[in-house]
């Protein structure tokens, strides 16, 4: 019985292709940041290689999976791998949440003279009062408006929460073999995801043009755009992954018992959802 053995692939050129892609990407972006504009194209070349690698590598894995060489133990490896990958993403976000909490609870009150920092305030930043949001005692980036929590962000919250429900419905449909329902609700999920990204873009344009709220608007602008920006990037990646999963469903992939990729993407989607709730509460609302 072939399924008794754990599948160990013989060799693969995708990882080394990925490393070369990363080399071009990192050298390209670094040289570009140092002021050489042609290096941007090296960066783009690197990104292209990485994208090609991802498609090739995943195509490889999908073909293996469809050919049935993966046994249940391989499936568990994939699941655990995805779980720990998401955990690493959680920790990445926690660095930026940490920065937000530190600024709000430590550095800004201290700049305002809190704790034993009376003279910091008096001598360095006389007249600065601790408040949130703030662009700092030197008014970095100039006068700005802070992002109100209701309106667009609330709509976005509703969109993401709804998408969490639709993907769960799609999952149940998959488990019960209702392919038509699965297709519709999976499509709904990634559409909601892309609408979220679009609205986030609208919000950014509004912030930059009408509110003078920019990445450069002191610590508030920094934390606002870095947190929502990285989250938006993850939603984009998640929506692309959902689209690919949807295309695979259209091709007839996944069975009620075997659908690791679907679940992995669903976990990822719930993860970006949970991050958003944290964002909505701590960045927009409180």
């Amino acid at each position, binding site marked *: 019985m072939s399924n008794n053995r754990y599948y160990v692939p013989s060799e693969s050129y995708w990882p080394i292709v990925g490393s070369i892609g990363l080399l071009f990407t*990192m050298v390209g972006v670094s040289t570009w940041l140092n002021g050489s504009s042609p290096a941007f194209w090296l960066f783009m070349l690197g990104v292209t290689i990485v994208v090609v690698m991802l498609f090739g590598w995943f195509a490889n894995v999908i*073909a293996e999976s469809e050919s049935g060489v993966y046994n249940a133990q391989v499936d568990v490896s994939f699941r655990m791998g995805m779980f720990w990958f998401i955990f690493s993403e959680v920790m990445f976000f926690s660095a930026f949440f940490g920065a937000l909490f530190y*600024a709000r609870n430590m550095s800004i009150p201290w700049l305002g003279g809190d704790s034993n920092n009376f003279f910091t305030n008096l001598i360095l930043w006389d007249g600065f009062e601790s408040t949130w949001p703030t662009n700092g005692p030197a008014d970095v980036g100039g006068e700005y408006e802070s992002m109100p929590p209701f309106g667009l962000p609330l709509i976005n919250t509703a969109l993401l929460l709804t998408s969490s429900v639709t993907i769960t419905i799609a999952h149940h449909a998959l488990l019960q073999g209702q392919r038509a329902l699965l297709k519709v609700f999976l499509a709904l999920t990634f559409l909601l995801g892309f609408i979220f990204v679009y609205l986030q873009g609208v919000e950014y344009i509004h912030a930059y043009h009408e509110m003078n709220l920019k990445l450069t608007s002191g610590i508030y602008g920094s934390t606002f755009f870095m947190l929502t920006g990285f989250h938006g990037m993850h939603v984009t990646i998640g929506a692309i992954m959902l689209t690919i999963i949807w295309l695979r469903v259209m091709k007839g992939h996944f069975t009620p018992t075997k659908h690791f990729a679907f679940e992995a993407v669903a976990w990822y989607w719930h993860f970006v959802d949970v991050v958003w709730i944290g964002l909505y509460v701590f960045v927009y609302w409180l």
Partner: protein
Amino acid sequence: MSSAEISTHHDAAHGEHHGPAKGIRRWLFATNHKDIGTMYLVFSLLMFFTGGFMALIIRTELFSPGLQFVHPEFFNQMTTMHALIMVFGAVMPAFVGLANWMIPMMIGAPDMALPRMNNWSFWILPVAFGILLSTLWMPGGAPASGWTMYPPLVLQTGDAFPFLIFSVHLMGFSSIMGAINIIVTIINMRAPNMTLLAMPMFVWTWLITAYLLIAVMPVLAGAVTMLLTDQFFGTSFFLAAGGGDPVMFQHIFWFFGHPEVYIMILPAFGVVSEIIPTFSRKPLFGHDSMVYAASSIAFLSFIVWAHHMFTVGMPLTGQLFFMFATLLIAVPTGVKVFNWVATMWQGAMTFETPMLFSLGFVFLFTIGGFSGLMLAVVPADIQYHDSYFVVAHFHYVLVPGSIFGIMAATYYWLPKWAGHMYNEKLGRIHFWMSAIFVNVTFFPMHFLGLAGMPRRIPDYSTQFADFNSIASVGAIGFGLSQLLFVYIVFRCVRGDGATATAEVWDNPRGLEWTVPSPAPYHTFEEPPEVTDGKAFS
């Protein structure tokens, strides 16, 4: 033709059976845990000598007071690059290499759980360190801010700055993928009936280490990303004028940094816990308490980070909390040291090279641990901070700690890898030279630090001259001794020594000793029978 077709054609039925691929393909496209482990170890050795060469530049400059060989700017580049290369290029990849080689064999798995990702984890490293080393030739030179990359100093780095940031990102990718692979392998791939508590200590300590890696490498990535955006995109994370705080970087960095130092020592604990029982001919004393101790150390590592920053300014309650939490680490660490000693107690001990390195580890790492306790005490630390005492402390835990652990592991398992014994006499000479010179190098640094010599400064007051020249002589001696190590390993791999038996040593415990030496290209394609898991602990 895509490789998907290749794989499905060849292996649809049975996974893989063939031997290594021919030529360079074997290494570039590797999925075999032993090949990837070998690449990690060789890479680590190259980095060890690169970083060591930089250390010798530092020690040569410090041989006598005054500025004689290098510019102060270049001196700072050397201290920074030495640390980055040794931490991320030498110690961590060496342990990952050992994990790759040994964990599948110790738990009875056919390979690592995710073999292709395993390859990528490795092949990102040459890219990362190629980028980092290339900064030496850039306008403004290599990073000179210290490996801790504190702003605002690091923001004065020249063209090297973005290369530094992105090479750290790449090291992070590599470590995270490597760690995911190790955790999944350990949790999912154990031989049937091998319970978690029956796992060998090296596997246990790596499980905990991998968890730490996944938890903190992303935090470092976040921290350096903030540096990048502060530099190029006008954010204010570390700019007080904009409401940020340069000290915030230190908090985020050390939230990564303290678990990081345990990432570099826990696998060495595991190695020593394998070796001491073998050469004491007794089971490890208190195996389960070792597991709980290592877990406690890992937990505590998350709540002690600010002891690296006692002088930077923080509320008194913060100082007290971090001091007490740090002192608490002595408890589980003490459990481990006492357990090693108790393992030896009344054992039929012999002193082959791996055992010598392990004993050296127990003695000398403990010295580093004690100086760590001194540094944990806030009022004392304010005296020691940024002095050579700190340099002495962390080199005691890293060189006769981590590096001796790696050396011990290499001698212990080399016959299993190569199929031949190394030259025992030369191995012992290597140990004694290393052990003597490491103390000649680093012990005087305690005195220098207590007398007030600051670290990371290329010049010093004449009162420090004697101890500095002693330390420099020791460093050169230590560096040269490691050439002997390369010679011993080279001769063993070439097949000069006696043929090794499957057991290699006198009745050692563990599944790795049940396969022939050298270990076949594929081991445990069928999981082994583990009836009494405890027999392998």
